[in-house]
């Protein structure tokens, strides 16, 4: 089992979709929302995902394919 922390950013057209709920149904992962801020134009969620490492990666790839942007929680690591 592994635990991964990521930040989801939702584009405006996806704000109403229950992506995290569906992710937990489609894949063998436990999702835990730790922080979030959503308004009518955009929204982000800091999420903990627990599960088999491969299953976590598959669930994140699925979320990305739905249009969610997935980033490391602490911001980009690569700097100038």
């Amino acid at each position: 089992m592994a635990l991964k922390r990521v930040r989801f950013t939702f584009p405006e057209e996806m704000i109403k979709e229950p992506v995290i709920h569906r992710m937990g149904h489609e894949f063998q992962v436990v999702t835990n929302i730790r922080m979030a801020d959503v308004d009518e134009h955009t929204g982000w969620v800091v999420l903990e995902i627990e599960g088999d490492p491969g299953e976590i990666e598959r669930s994140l790839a699925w979320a990305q394919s739905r249009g969610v942007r997935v980033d490391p929680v602490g911001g980009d690591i690569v700097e100038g």
Partner: protein
Amino acid sequence: MSFAKSLRCRECHREYPLAAIHVCEFCFGPLEVAYDYDAIRRNTSRESIAAGPASLWRYRNLLPCDANAAVDIGAGFTPLIHAKNLGKALGLPRLYIKNDTVNPTWSFKDRVVAIASTRARELGYEKLACASTGNLANSVSAHAAAAGMDAVVFIPHDLEAGKVLGSSIYGPTLVKVRGNYDAVNRLCAELAGSYNWAFVNVNVRPYYSEGSKTLGFEIAEQLGWRAPDHCVVPIASGSLFVKIRKGLDELAKIGLIDPPRTRMSGAQATGCSPVAVAWEEGSMNFRPQRPNTIARSLAIGNPADGYYSLVQLRDTEGACGNVNDEEIVKGMTLLAETEGIFGETAAGVTVASLKQLAERGRISPDELTVAFITGAGFKTSEAVAEALRPPLEVEASMESFEQACEALQKAEVPA
């Protein structure tokens, strides 16, 4: 010794020991170094600072590591210049340039890496690491060499040869990662979590970012112990932008300057402008972007301190420039032609943003304004090469030379 007493969460204010950790376990807020300011005040004066070395280590009492064991390659205490020519061109007669191109590896990153490497060595680390598109890689490689530490530096596979050489000369383990920006970022986030290395901008980030405060200390001292009215700072992760102001606030806290009323303005390239766009929209939520700009040293699409940058823009009544690649090149040449300073593309972003903000009335001509030039131009010379006038080519004769001068003169006189 250091007057640092703990790490503290910026969000929930929980305290942690001074270890190699950077995120609050409860709320995921960033950790920041907390100091015993009463003790610093008792032990620090303008005179004691002035008697210190001509480097950032003159501010030793306000740094989170022991200056007696510093990894010191001479970072900091760079010139502050009254930019009369550039100021005249922009209608800003009280404009100053903080010229950080003259640091040991030619960028302000030497400030943050000096602190990160010193603290990493104190914490017992033997390896320094980073992921970078240039400046940070150069500085980590150089400081590790001077500290007798190993360096592991990750770079994108398509990095320009000049930037690769600027790191490899110091002998690090240089790793070119194939893949796009997101892939490199993802791999490095995983590596940082898996290896027991001092990843300068990850697990030792609270110490690393304190190095940027020294820019705030220096400009106040160089202005005769006063804060400027306005600062214009390039924004990448946002850490530099936030910490310059923290430096000014700390000097006030220990009684060395009056409380600053400095307006803090930012500068971003249109091809990577999450903070500028959020500021323009009046939102405190930035949307991460995929960078596409010649200003690669500012190309952070998901800035760690993006939110805090927006807070600072709002609280200090600052503004954020947003300039395209063409304006960036013009900014680089304008700086060079007016002040004799060859800055990199980030400098072009800063100067072009100064111009934009001055034209829009966001900077008043009355304000004592400091613009931060954070890296040297030879690192990104390819960005301006095509925009520059080619040299005159002549035969080895007086006649040929004079003909060429005449032709040049004719070309320069508008029809």
